[in-house]
Structures are given as C-alpha cells and as structure tokens.
C-alpha cells in the first residue's frame, strides 16, 4: 500500500533520510501474540503499517464441518483464550437459535454471572497489557493478581483455569459447588480498590496521558466502516452494546439487569462511583478513551455480577444440562452475534439435517478491529505503534482462527 506521495515543492533543500522497512513481529514482546507489522518508517515517523496475520491459523472452521455442535465447544474456548466463557456463550446461543431451544431462567442468570466475571478477567488483561506496552510493569502485576482470583473461582466451578468448556448448547456443564457464590461475593467486595489503584497509576498518570491521549484517533464513521465493535467503537462515542441492542434471544438474558453502556453520551461518561475526569488533550476515539472505556466496563460488569448472584440464589431448582451429543441439526442457517469483551463475536451455523454442521463461520471482533490499524498508524511515531495496537486489545487466536 503506497503512502500518499509528498509533492516535490514541499521539499526545499531537505536532507532526505532513507526510508526503512522495519518488521515488528511475529516474535515481538508487544504484539499480543504472533502478529507481524511491516512498518515503512522515515526515521521515527511511521509512513505505513501493514499487519500480516495467519501465523496462528488452525482452520477452526474446517474442523467445525467435521464435529458435532457439542464436540466443537472446546474449539470455541481456544478462539479468544482470554475470554473463553463468552466464546462458549456465543456458540451455545447460536446452536439454541438454530434448534429453537429455550433455556431456564436460572441457567440464564448463571450464564450472565459467569460471562460477566470472564469479561472482568479479559478487560483486566487488556488494560494492563497496554500499560506494559508503555513501560509501566507494576499495574500489570496488580491486574494479574486479581485475575488469578477469578481463575481460581472458575477452577472451582468447572475444573479449568482458562479454557472452560462450561457454557454448552442447552445449558451449563455443572452446577456451582456449595459456597461458590459466597466466594464470588467476597471477591467483588475486595475488588473495588483495585480499580481505584489503576485509575491512580495509569488513567490520571501524566506520562500515560501523554503517551495515549490523541494517539491512534478513530472517527465514528471510520470505525463503523472498518467494522470495529466493542470498546473500540464505544470509545469513538457510538453508544452501541449488543447486550442492550442485540437480538432478543441474547438481550433477553440482560433484560432485568441495571448497568450503563460505557460510552460517552452528550459529552459525558456514565458516572459509576468515583471516576477521574477526561484529560483535556484526549480526543474522542483515541487510545486513552479505549483504555478508559474498558476500565468503566470492569466496574459495570462487577455490578452486574453482584445482581446476578442475588437473582441466581433466589431461584429454586438447578440449571439445565447440555443437549444430547448426537442431536440432529435442521436444514437451515442461523447467525447470531453476542457482545464479547473484544467486540461483537458472530457465529454462523448451516445445518444439513445430520448431526454435523455443513458450514461453520466465526466473525472475530479483533479481526475487524485490527484492520483499522493501517488507518491509525499512518503518520504516528514508532513508539506509538505499541500504544495503538495495545489499546485495540487484540488476541491473535481469535483473529487467525
């Protein structure tokens, strides 16, 4: 992709430094996995950035044409390995939409509880990874300490720490053990000060603001045109969250929960407890706003989990179990998008009457978010590239499938 040509008249007697082609990745400490960015730089200024992906391509869609819907669930864990619960939920809901199954209300509350906890864990990694890219190591350790507690909760629930295979079509694999809900409540009680610490160390830190405010600016039109979704879209001021604006089968789960959408409506973010003000130099849609939206969402998810614990424990009975292994799929197609932590995760299943789907298609949010990197990295400095890529919070497992 050629950078736009600079007309000759602008260069008077300029010392023309030689342009350099720099390859950042696939083995690189700040590309969140095996992403290769081919940068054409002129000194420190990046003229063009072309991402190269496909290093982690495991042909998940081809495998989907060989396995039944129940057998494919562990593969969805490995798409976005930082938010496996939400991946499972997306697949489970799409299968339920294809088969026309309705799950019990108790299962829905448990699914909301588990997915929002997973969203907190995913956003914790997303925010502190950006901090690590900019050089501050300490918040990274704090966030991982909190994330460990969530992983311990999930281990108690379904035996695995990162790849759960828990939310399956038809319900959930196991009922929460005794005292698990109380442990969740204890975790939430001691969790709030951590967000304040992050605000102090990163959000209001002058050096952090200098490095992220006004960097990698994305306008709402460009974001929508590039298909960016999730925190990346909300940071540009577009108030769009599938948990409220999605399809009925998905929004039904979140209907009786009170939470704000973390987007700037008429110039102000929804106030949720003590939040630092937006710095003057921050332009709507830049890296700082993407970081800030994720921190707000952590607070919102924590509130939703608290409500889910109360609603779940109030209902009697047990959550519904999974559908039989060899359930036949109708000869039809179903496409459903859910709000994963990284953005809108879509699954398309085309059944052909047998138990094995004819075609499986996965719409990855990070795939579209990453495509906007070309636009944002043009004209930035070399040191801004990790700031921009880090603020997109991409996971290569999900991009390459």
């Amino acid at each position, binding site marked *: 992709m050629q950078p736009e040509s600079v007309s000759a008249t602008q260069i008077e007697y300029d010392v023309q430094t030689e342009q*350099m082609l*720099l390859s*950042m990745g696939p083995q*690189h*400490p*700040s590309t969140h996995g095996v992403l290769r960015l081919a940068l054409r730089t002129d000194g*420190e200024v990046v003229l063009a950035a072309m991402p190269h992906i496909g290093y982690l391509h495991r042909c998940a869609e081809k495998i989907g044409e060989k396995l039944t819907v129940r057998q494919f669930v562990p593969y969805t864990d490995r798409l976005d390995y930082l938010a496996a619960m939400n991946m499972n939920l997306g697949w489970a809901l799409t299968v339920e939409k294809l088969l026309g199954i309705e799950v019990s209300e108790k299962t829905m509350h448990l699914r909301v509880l588990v997915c929002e906890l997973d969203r907190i864990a995913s956003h914790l990694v997303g925010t502190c990874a950006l*901090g*690590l*890219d*900019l*050089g*501050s*190591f*300490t918040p990274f*350790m*704090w966030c991982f*300490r909190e994330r460990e507690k969530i992983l311990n909760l999930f281990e108690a629930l379904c035996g695995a720490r990162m790849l759960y295979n828990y939310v399956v079509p038809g319900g959930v694999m196991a009922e929460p053990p005794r005292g698990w809900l109380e442990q969740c409540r204890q975790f939430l009680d001691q969790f709030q000060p951590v967000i304040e610490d992050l605000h102090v*160390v*990163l959000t209001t*830190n002058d*050096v*952090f603001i*200098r*490095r992220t405010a006004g960097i990698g600016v994305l306008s709402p039109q460009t974001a929508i045109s590039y298909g960016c979704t999730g925190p990346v879209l909300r940071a540009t001021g577009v108030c769009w969250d599938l948990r409220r604006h999605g399809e009925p089968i998905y929004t039904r789960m979140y209907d009786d929960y009170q939470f704000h959408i973390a987007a700037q409506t008429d110039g102000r973010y929804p106030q949720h407890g003590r939040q630092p003000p937006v710095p003057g130099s921050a332009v709507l849609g830049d890296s700082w706003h993407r970081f800030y939206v994720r921190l707000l969402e952590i607070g919102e998810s924590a509130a939703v989990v608290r409500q889910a614990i109360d609603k779940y424990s109030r209902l009697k009975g047990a959550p519904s179990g999974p559908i039989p292994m060899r359930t036949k799929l109708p000869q039809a197609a179903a496409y459903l998008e859910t709000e994963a932590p990284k953005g809108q995760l879509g699954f398309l299943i085309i059944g052909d009457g047998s138990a094995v789907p004819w075609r499986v298609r996965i719409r990855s949010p990070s795939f579209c978010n990453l495509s906007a990197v070309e636009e944002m990295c043009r004209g930035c*400095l*070399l*040191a*801004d*590239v*990790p700031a921009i890529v*880090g603020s997109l919070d991409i996971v290569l497992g999900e991009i390459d499938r």
Partner: protein
Amino acid sequence: MADHLANWFHPSLDWLAYTIAGAAGAALLLVVALMVAAVSMWLERKISARIQDRLGPTRVGGRYGWLQPLADGLKVLGKEDIIPAQADKLLFRAAPYLAYAAAFCTYMVLPFSGRWVALPLDSAVFMFLAVASLEVPAIILAGYASGSKYSLFGAMREAAQVVSYEIPLALCVVIPVMLAGTLSLSEIAEQQRGWLTSWLVFRNPFVCGAFFVFGICALAHTNRAPFDLPEAESELVAGFMTEYSGFRWVVFFMAEYAAMFAICGLGAILFLGGWNGPIPLTDLLGLRYDAGPLAGWLGDALGAINFIFKCFLGITCMIWMRWTLPRLRIDQVMSLCLKYCIPLATLMLAGCMLWQYAMPGGVVHTVGNAGHSHSPVAECTQHRPHAQRRLSNPLSGPGAPENSSLRQQPRLLLEATSVLLRGN
C-alpha cells in the same frame, strides 16, 4: 602506600613496589564498582517486588536472597555468547568494554570520604562529566555493530537523548561549583561540613530547584525510568542490547548500574554534602587526622558509609520511579529537555548568581549588617565565609609540600580584580 612498599623491598625492586601499589588501587576501585552494581541489582529486585505486592528473591543465600546477584552473574556466564552473522565483529566485541570503561572511569574522581579518593583532581567535576559522556560512543558502537535495525534505532535514540541532556546536566552542575568556587569534588564536600543547613542544597532556593532538574537529567543520562527509550522492550525489543547475550550483555548491565551509582554520588557530593551527614558525627567525636591516624581513618570510614548511604538513597528513588511511571516517547523526551530542563537550569543558574551577588554571606549575614553600605565587589573579595573554612588542603597528602597556590587564592583574586578595575 607505595613508599612503605618501596623501602620494604630491595632498593632495586622499587619499580615492583610502585606497580603493586598502582595495581592494588585499581583493583580496589574495580571491586567497589562491581559490588555497587551487584547490590543495586539486588536492591532493584527487592524494591520492585515490594511495589508489585510480591516477595522478590528469597531463596538464594539466606532469607533475603542477597546472593541473587551472584547467582545471576553465574547464570549469565553460563549463557552462550552469540555474535550475529552480519555484525561487525571487532566493534561488536569492543562496545561493551568501552561502555564499562566510561562508567568505571568516573569512580577515579569520585571521593568517598575526605582522604579516600583515588585521584584528587583539581578539576574533578569537569573530568567526571567528560568521562561520563564517553558512554554515548560506546552505545552507538554497539547499536551500529550489531547490524540489526532495532539496535540501530536504539543507538540513534540513545545518541539524541544523552547528548541533549548533557547541557542541562552541566548547567545544574555549574551551580554548586559556582557556590563552592572550585571544581574539586573533595573541596566542594569539605565546604559542606557541619549540620544539615550547611548543605549546598539548602544554600538558596535556586540550588534546591537545580537539584530537582539535576535529578531528572541524571535519570535521562543513565537511561532510567521514564527515559529508558534506548532499551525500550515494548518497541525495540532491547534497543542496542538486542543482539548481545552472555557475558557481553552483563557488562552493559554493570555499566548501567555503575553509571547510576556514580551520577548519584555526584549529586550527593554537589548538593547533599557528600560524606558530611546531617549531624557532623566526625566533628562531634573529634575523629580528625590531627587527633591521630586511627581516629582520622575512623572519621573517613564513617564519612564513606554516610556517602554510600546517600548514593543508595538516590538509587532507590531511581528504582522507585522506574516501577511506577510508563515510558516517554522520544519527541516528548526531547521537548522536555529543550523546553523545560534547559530553561529551568539557566533560570536557576541566573537566580543563584544574583542571589549570591546580592547576599554573598547568606541572608542572615547580609540582613545583619544591612546598615553599612558596602560595594558588592569589595564584599565578595574581602571575606568569603564559606571559602575560608578550608581546613586541610586535599592535595597536601602526607609529606606533600605546603606551597600549593590554593593558599594564595584570595590574594590572586584581589590583585586580579584591582587590575580589572584600573582597566589597563
């Protein structure tokens, strides 16, 4: 020491005595530099662990893991020494040793205590800055010789950053030198003998401001904390150190820690009274050389401990900054230097000059005899209270002649200014 050895040996072997004395001095200095690097590495691990709610090294060597630097050293010595194919072999090997030489030479002129100084130079501060700026060619050598684009980027950033931060650093160093009237570090520290108030940093508000600007420039000079762009892991993998491994990489690392301690030492001497603690213990206990060599030696030892403690205080602040602040971008580092550090440093310099000109004896003295009308020039030549308190001339080691011209300093100045005034 050389003379004791000389008359202990057979007269014809006195050259051997001098060689051994010289070698012993150099070895002692090298041990100091290595020990300092090891302790600050351990300190960094422990402090960063505490900041991040973890324990840091606890197993190697006792409960507090104080043998961890040794363990690291042995581990790295075991690592393979790779030289990349397209590297420039000769320069690639030379770079780390040049970097360490630059950092190590500053210890020559750094006085640890009144008598404990390797080379009591008259222009010690100037020598310190000259040798410290030798690290830039070494790192550029490393960056270029590694042959990879990343290290070249790291080297370019290093060159731009350290060269441009030398200006404010030099300006901040000039201020205490101007107050003390001499470039010799031992002399500057001697003048700050006494209670806390005699430290140069409290002499006037401008020196205090200069101390903070010096702190920032020291950080930038040693590539630490918000200014560690040349080896920014997230962008340049490891900057100029990308292609180095094994022993060569450790030499770079030791150079960085040695330079850190040295710049903290310079700061401690210029602003925080060197080996003169807040409470003048050596004076109170009467541990001076005229009370016998052992008492003098004890006084110097106490002073050295005090000085090393201040240096490690400085290093702790550097470590603390590193583990809380993210990294600045190269153009922000440059604009911070050109738009803030240099103007501030010049402002402090000008302010300190005017303050010293208006009130040479300090506020109390001037206010005290505000009534008498003195011409400022005569005021500053007749009696310079701080300059007078020069007890022992550092150059006059045992047995050296007393005729050095430092004693006649005021007379020279008086005649010089009178010649100027007569304008011939």
